[in-house]
């Protein structure tokens, strides 16, 4: 009797499971079909600016200010994203010797040219947390001694060219409109609303939720072992590109990092310290670009779409080398925190493209200006001669 009852329950359960499986399978199939039909080239090779972007940008700035105010630590206002640095290290960027002519553009027009650079490694969150927490990881490069007028009128004479990246090839929103609603929900601390903003199923963003979940990934062994992507597109002379940096172990001595204690909050910083300062081993990356082929589905205005390597390969344009060094000093850490990284610190040849990049122009400046004024810190682009400690507020030490 009882057995039969359980048998029935079990059968019902199995049926339900099967039905659920079929629904999921069907949904997946429909999604695949839908994307294979709609995700097709050709796409525009120029920007297409949707209406209302300026108003949304202002709203995002308000929310960003709210976020940094509500996430500040007890002495400083931090960035609204990538607040925690693992360290700022000095690097050398060398333009590839045998760079094909068509890739000799902007800052990379002279093969073999060297640039001194600062590289900042970070966790993506707006508040410092344990490195073991699932998170995005960032890498920002600031090339110096880059000649030529820059895009931002107020910083036209700066000698810097920034490359700003994180360790996912795609972003969890498509455009400014979606970023605005997502960001507003996050500012209120509502994670579900971020991807399901209303009852209307047409606004639900399953795919973007999956990207978001993927973005929050376990930490790499070391910031040096991850690859970092620009996500958004840029000009590159006559081309439109996305760029990335990937580890390039062949150009560096082989190195096996000692195991880090991942229970400690800052083990990623410790791994940089171990390699560069204790073991004195340099690290190498290749900087690569992927040119847009507008006949393929490589859109400029949707950062949630990955440009497939099968559509266009990545090509190395420069080598980045981080020599062994000491970097973990109070002066340098403060200097690092006071740097402003934005893709708009850029030559016109590398002008940022697409909605998310247009948003970053205003949002990064607003957050940076706010942060620096609140922190009483000077806000100016460094030159190759700028040393940590120069111009920054003196660090008060107890007598």
């Amino acid at each position, binding site marked *: 009797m009882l057995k039969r009852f359980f048998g029935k329950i079990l059968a019902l359960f199995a049926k339900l499971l099967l039905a659920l499986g079929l629904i999921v399978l069907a949904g997946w199939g429909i999604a695949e079909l839908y994307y294979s039909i709609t995700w097709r080239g050709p796409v525009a090779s120029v920007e297409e600016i949707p209406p209302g972007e*300026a108003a949304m*940008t*202002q*709203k995002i*700035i*308000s929310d960003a*200010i*709210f976020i940094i*105010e*509500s996430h500040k630590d007890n002495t400083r206002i931090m960035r609204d994203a990538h607040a925690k640095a693992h360290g700022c290290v000095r690097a050398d960027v060398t333009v590839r010797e045998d760079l094909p002519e068509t890739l000799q553009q902007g800052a990379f027009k002279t093969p073999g040219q060297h640039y001194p650079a600062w590289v900042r490694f970070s966790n993506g969150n707006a508040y410092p947390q344990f490195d073991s927490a699932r998170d995005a990881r960032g890498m920002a490069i600031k090339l110096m001694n880059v000649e030529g007028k820059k*895009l*931002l*009128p*107020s910083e036209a004479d700066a000698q810097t060219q920034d490359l700003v990246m994180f360790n996912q090839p795609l972003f969890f929103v498509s455009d400014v409109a979606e970023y605005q609603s997502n960001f507003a929900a996050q500012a209120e601390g509502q994670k579900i609303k971020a991807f399901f903003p209303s009852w209307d199923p047409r606004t639900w963003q399953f795919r973007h939720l999956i990207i978001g979940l993927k973005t929050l990934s376990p930490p790499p062994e070391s910031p040096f072992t991850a690859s970092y992507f620009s996500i958004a597109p840029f000009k590159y002379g006559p081309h439109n590109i996305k760029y990335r940096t990937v580890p390039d172990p062949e150009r560096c001595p082989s190195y096996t990092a000692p195991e880090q204690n991942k229970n400690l909050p800052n083990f990623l910083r410790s791994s940089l310290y171990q390699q560069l300062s204790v073991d004195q081993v340099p690290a190498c990356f290749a900087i690569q670009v992927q040119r847009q082929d507008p006949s393929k589905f490589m859109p400029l205005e949707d950062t949630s779409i990955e440009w497939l390597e099968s559509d266009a390969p990545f090509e190395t344009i420069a080598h980045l080398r981080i020599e062994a060094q000491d970097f973990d000093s109070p002066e340098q850490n403060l200097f690092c925190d006071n740097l402003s990284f934005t893709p*708009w610190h850029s030559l016109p040849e590398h002008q940022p493209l697409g909605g998310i990049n247009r948003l970053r*122009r*205003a949002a*990064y*400046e*607003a*957050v940076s*200006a*706010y*942060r*620096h*004024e*609140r922190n009483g810190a000077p*806000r100016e682009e460094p030159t190759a001669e700028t040393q940590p400690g120069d111009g920054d507020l003196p660090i008060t030490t107890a007598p």
Partner: protein
Amino acid sequence: MRLVLRLLLLVLLLAGTAIAVVVHYLKNPHVPAYQAPEQVLYLNQWDEAARQLYYYTPQGTTLKGLRYDWLVALEQPFNQKRFIAPENLGRYGLLFDPKQTPSDANPGNLPVGLARHQDADTGQWYVDITCAACHTGELRYQGQAVRIDGGAGMHALASTVPTLKGGSFGQALGAAMALTYYNPSKFDRFADKVLGINAKRDRKKLRFEFKAVLDRFTATALNDWRRGLYPTEEGPGRTDAFGRIANTVYGDMIDEKNYHIANGPVNYPHLWDIWKFDWVQWNGSAMQPMARNVGEALGVGASLTLFNNNGQPVAINERYASSVRIHDMYRIEETLKTLKPPRWPEELFGAINLKQASKGRALFEENCAYCHAPRPQPQAKRLAPERDPEWKLKVIPTRIIGTDPTAADNIADNRYDVRRLGWTRGQLAGQDVTLVGDGTLADVDLAEVSSAKGLAYLTAYVEDRAYKNAGIRGDERARMDGFGLKIGVRELRGYKARPLDGIWATPPFLHNGSVPNLFQLLSPVAEREIKFHIGNLAFDPKHVGFETQEFPGSFLLDTSVTGNSNRGHEFRDGCRQGGVIGRYLSPSERWALIEYLKVLGHAELEQQLTPVPAKPWTEGPSCDALIPLVEAQ
């Protein structure tokens, strides 16, 4: 068959539930309970005669033709208590003084601003919503009421779109009228009161006329609801004044394709000192006092004759005849010149800390005066040389001030087809209208005229007719127009920064009432409440504004709704752009400023302040990212 029966039962059940819900809210509308104040404190803004004149002088509007004695006789929907009882009307934010008694001007003992006028043709007395109905404020504290004459009304009088839960005066009135009409015993009592001994004889006629008014209420409600004209709920204390005037004049009166969504509700602005302003209205769009008043009256419900029953324009000598009462309007306007800003009642709200206020004055000089200080013009530079003083006010573009742009944008963007009026440029050129800023008369396209320009010309015609009918000409007309000013029109995307005398008495703040108190107004946007509750006039003398907690019948103001944005007018660090207009003010600085704002406009108190040197204006970091890249370069 059984299925059909069951379905029928289900439908009946659902319908019954729906009716029960509707009846429930008709009986218990979502409005706060009325609490009679122990007493009403008046703040010596003017004398009692001026006050009574202001409260009950009609301006020539009607409530869809509602007769005065009908309103007085009306019962509440589900009981026999009077509709006009303070316990009922007070719930909708209309103002009573427990000591008030019937008078010649106010025989029905109605709340502030519900006046009456007699129609010259029919001899009937109509309910007349006059200026004071919306431009009189009250603050409640510890059981006392503080009356703010010329202040901001906090009722939901203007709302025409019914909501399930109720909460507006119009809906309550409509419900009371409908139940009076359809409940025979209720109507009998009503007819007895209105008709007296003639109740039997005239009952049918009364029923007919009463139904006509009820139908007009229903038609308006249906029209506005069906077209979705007012998607942003106005709630207590707000109305999309310009949008409603435009929909009434261009939509109801001229052409139904002229309806536009009005989603930029604004507060009722306070009226002291406004006769000194060079331009009035939130966006500084109007210049001549009489034209502004006529335009307002047309929106509130003055009658206007344009077309006959066949839709043809009426004869030229009858066209533009209106119920607008220019003599009364002039009297109100003149009386308002004697209105002083309210004095902070220290005996009730607490003493002013003069040391703090002195510090606040220096901060005001540093951070506020640039926009908010009155700038009296020398005679040669005035718009009206006779006006002394005349204050030149700054209109700050929404791009800079960053406050909700909906109201200003709607006025600047919406266009109306007025070709049915048969105007020609030649005729318009003869009107006393000055277009300031963009465009001349030659650019005016009568198929798509802007609301402000169209209204300027229309009010010019209405004024003409009214003055002609009253036999007023020349100097007398110029004087009644207001200092001989022309009808000026401007359509700026911005809001005027008015001097802040008595500003403490006019919460909630910003043009759209999206910030409940002064402390939040001086705080960064991140510290302002995103949603708050209003509607019971409970004053918070510490933060200077309204209490914001939920209470039974409260109206939830959600600043994320279009038209309700609480951004802008912000003092914080970072780029001075997108609504950030000044440096971060520390909380103690905000408190000091608030202390000064309690004193500002009250010379006697201001004289007691000690001089504190003002710091220079802090220029912010250089930023250019909100400017399009091409322009910036």
